[in-house]
């Protein structure tokens, strides 16, 4: 085992700031990309639903 304790693990031999600064920012950016993609997906889906409703209405008005 490389690490004696949790504190030892967090300290990273004195390089904690640099190591965790790298890993946490990377994790945050990847999370952000996934979240942004999810928001985009939902927006497209909503637009699609609106369009479906509208086209049904148009069809309905055309026949009546």
């Amino acid at each position, binding site marked *: *085992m*490389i*690490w004696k304790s949790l504190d030892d*693990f967090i300290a*990273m*031999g*004195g*390089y904690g700031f*640099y*190591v965790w*600064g*790298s*890993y946490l*920012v*990377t994790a945050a*950016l*990847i999370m952000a*990309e*996934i979240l942004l*993609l999810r928001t*985009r*997906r939902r927006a*497209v*889906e909503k*637009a*699609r*639903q609106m*369009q*479906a409703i509208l*086209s049904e209405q148009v069809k309905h008005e055309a026949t009546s």
Partner: protein
Amino acid sequence: MKLNWFKYASPVTFYPVAGKLIPWFALAAAILTVAGLYLSFFVAPTDFQQGESYRIIFIHVPAAWMSMFIYIVMACWAAAGLIFNTRLSSMMASALAPTGALFTFIALWTGALWGKPTWGAWWVWDARLTSELILLFLYMGFLALHAAIDDPRRADRASAVLALVGVVNVPIIYFSVKWWNTLHQGASVSMTMAPKMATTMLLGMLIMALACWMYSIAVALARVRCIILEREQQAEWIAKLNKEPA
């Protein structure tokens, strides 16, 4: 039997296939990330010169590889879009650009955090760092140019030309450490030489790189599906999709 090479070049056939593939790539990315992080933090030994700060390379090197590789793939799709005039190829190029830019930024960011304790500087204007920064600007230029042109097909062509011109930068990044006397060290892993690091370190790095691959594929497929829906709102086949849940 006549094989139709362009079958999957059509958004109609590609859309459901991409949807089925995404969970598998996402799952592979998650498993490989867990395995890679375990190796990086609990198996790979402390570096005798750099101490623990070297553990940054487990994301730095894969991110830098991805930044270059995604650019090449993006340029290939952009070129295919120009040559064959296939909509999907250009959409793939657009779907890859944000992820490529993300990995470029991660490579620069983690490089700075590694450089400070190792070299004593966050940033130096050496050939490797500068050409990687240019790569970030190329990705941003591609995205900005695409967003600036209203007609998507024209935007595809203009940004494809930009992507293709920018390809010259990739070999410059890769060989910069050989061509110039850079502060950045030479290649850690090469096809011709034995790796200059412990096997567990190398393994950790390769698994993290594979995780980045799987992640990039999953995200690019998810994004291209969004782009297809956004761009082909009016198409007949999308209207059919509306009748079933996504």
